[in-house]
């Protein structure tokens, strides 16, 4: 870009020249018109291409106009603004489409029958069937995983904040961080190698919940740790001053103060593992019939059900997959919203 003559001339003016407020809108209209003209002229069929061209023309045009009238710095500022807005709009499209498609396709077969019947005896290409068995399996597996992971995670969090000193605590902190990043399929392979291949147990909901528990533990530890750190030290000191032993202080002062945040953390962790599919594929295996015993035999699960129905590859199955996906999203979102509500209303009261 050549140096803008206007800016140079008015370098000592108090008021920098500015584009009028309607300038971006005018450039937008011009860019859209140019894109339509080129699109019609070149016979481009895709409206996406027209839109892209208009966007590029708008950004470039606004930069050029602004560089001419306001100087290079203002032009760069406008360019950055365009790009940031562009990034936002670009990201909104797929994310909104994901939610919209799931709702639109999901409501097709979602009804009372779908929620209360299993896939037992339903031919893959025929409509009908439901997710009752999968819902049951998911709830049992997630509940078992929560029962396993919460005490360990909670106590580890307490250890790190209240007791942890020295090398062991540092190692635990580091490996909890690393554990957060374990791919879910690797957790599945681990349980597979120990529980099923090593100890000779069969596929079961329990095996799946072991893997889910491994994925859940670090999240619980992390959130417990964060929450315990928020508890003001004055509370602990007051309790010690009254002669209360440390363990009672933790159980009756520290934990009750932070219980809202810890509950939130546990619920967010539950929401996260509810959607896990990969380890269940290896450990729970899937089952079209109702199996209400998580300790014995292959079970179904909601995420796994979605995968299986997708893999069937026909319209009736796709409809079922979308409906199950909608149920799963709603379930996870409700857990999230509930967790956030609890966090808001039961936040630790500090500074009183």
């Amino acid at each position, binding site marked *: 870009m050549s140096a803008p003559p206007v800016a140079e001339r008015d370098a000592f003016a108090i008021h920098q020249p500015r584009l009028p407020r309607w300038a971006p809108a005018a450039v937008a209209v011009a860019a859209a018109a140019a894109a339509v003209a080129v699109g019609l002229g070149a016979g481009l069929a895709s409206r996406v291409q027209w839109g892209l061209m208009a966007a590029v023309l708008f950004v470039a045009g606004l930069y050029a106009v602004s560089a001419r009238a306001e100087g290079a*710095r203002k032009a760069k500022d406008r360019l950055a603004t365009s790009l940031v807005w562009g990034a936002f709009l670009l990201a909104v499209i797929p994310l909104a489409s994901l939610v919209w498609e799931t709702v639109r396709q999901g409501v097709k077969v979602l009804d009372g029958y779908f929620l209360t019947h299993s896939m037992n005896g339903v031919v893959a290409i025929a409509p009908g069937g439901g997710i009752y068995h999968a819902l049951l399996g998911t709830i049992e597996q997630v509940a078992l995983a929560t029962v396993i992971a919460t005490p360990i995670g909670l106590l580890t969090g307490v250890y790190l904040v209240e007791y942890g000193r020295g090398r062991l605590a540092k190692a635990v902190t580091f490996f909890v961080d690393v554990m957060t*990043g374990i791919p879910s399929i690797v957790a599945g392979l681990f349980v597979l190698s120990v529980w099923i291949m090593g100890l000779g147990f069969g596929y079961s909901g329990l095996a799946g919940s072991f893997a889910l528990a491994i994925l859940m533990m670090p999240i619980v530890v992390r959130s417990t740790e964060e929450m315990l750190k928020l508890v003001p030290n004055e509370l602990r000191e007051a309790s010690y001053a009254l002669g209360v032993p440390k*363990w009672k202080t933790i159980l009756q002062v520290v934990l009750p103060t932070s219980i809202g945040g810890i509950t939130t953390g546990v619920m967010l962790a539950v929401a996260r593992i509810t959607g896990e599919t990969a380890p269940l594929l290896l450990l729970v295996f899937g089952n079209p019939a109702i199996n209400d015993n998580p300790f014995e035999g292959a079970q179904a699960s909601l995420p796994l059900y979605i995968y299986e129905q997708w893999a069937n590859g026909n319209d009736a199955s796709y409809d079922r997959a979308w409906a199950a996906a909608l149920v799963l999203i709603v379930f996870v979102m409700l857990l999230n919203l509930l967790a956030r509500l609890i966090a808001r209303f039961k936040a630790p009261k500090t500074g009183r």
Partner: protein
Amino acid sequence: MSTDTDIRTPAPPPPGAPREPGRRRSATRLGDRVFAGLSKGSGITLLVIMGAIAAFLAYRAAIALAKNEGNFLTTFEWNANAQPPVFGIAVLAFGTVVSSVIAMVIAVPIAVGIALFITHYAPRRLAAPIAYVIDLLAAVPSIVYGLWGALFLVPHLVGPYEWLDDLLGWTVVFSYDGGAPRSLMTAGILLAIMILPIITNVSREVFRQSPQTHQEAALALGATRWEVIRTTVLPFGRSGVISASMLGLGRALGETMAVATVLSPSAILSAKVLEPGGGTFAQNIASAFKEAGEFGRDALIASGLVLFVITLLVNGAARLIIARRKEYSGANA
């Protein structure tokens, strides 16, 4: 606490003290010891689990590798059930790296853009709800992304890919012959969409923490909004963005279902990322598991071990960057 009581022992016990100090002290100690032991034990349990994961995967992998007739690192095909078994991770490693790199190249700039949009550009009233919604989107299960990717994204990518082929087909990398675009590129795009909320959330937190005083100082010197961001917000947030990206990368490397649903796997190692074919570690495990026999599972575990080590390194690096930042960020906050 106990020293206090020791000092006071010679003095007469205060009136109304229900128990003698000695008994109370030992009761205290027992409860404390049990509770401290329990919590310490939980911490150790976590370490043991991590160790066990590494140990068991390595043990099973060793069994598989001993019988492998191919070179584990350079063989293309995955025929663990054949006699003799031949399998290698060349295609899987290539596919994992390529799809993750595509995801990062797309997701990181856009995520930084959204984070800046929320903290510095969006109208005040919109910023909080947008941040909230993006927070929620981070919780959408990957299988839902996978379903959407397979049934909605894949058909809609044919047009853009043909366009890419017209414009950039001469580079070979972006050449495209038509057909269902169930390729590494598609997997990369879907992964990018998946990790976008995660990277956005962490970056947003860091940008929000960037010192207000620096920004005001820059404004007072006459900086435009972009110059404020470039000179104060981005330098402050750089390491945060890097570690956020690494977390996203760790997620992309290990993602199973979203890749398994949109990729047509094959034992081809090709630079044409728009063409179907290739595979990733996690996708291969999920796809090959049902047909794998006892030995086939060992082989899959061997590939899982490689994935485990890679994600361990990536996550460890991310944590080190975060830890380093903690040390100096307090001074200029």
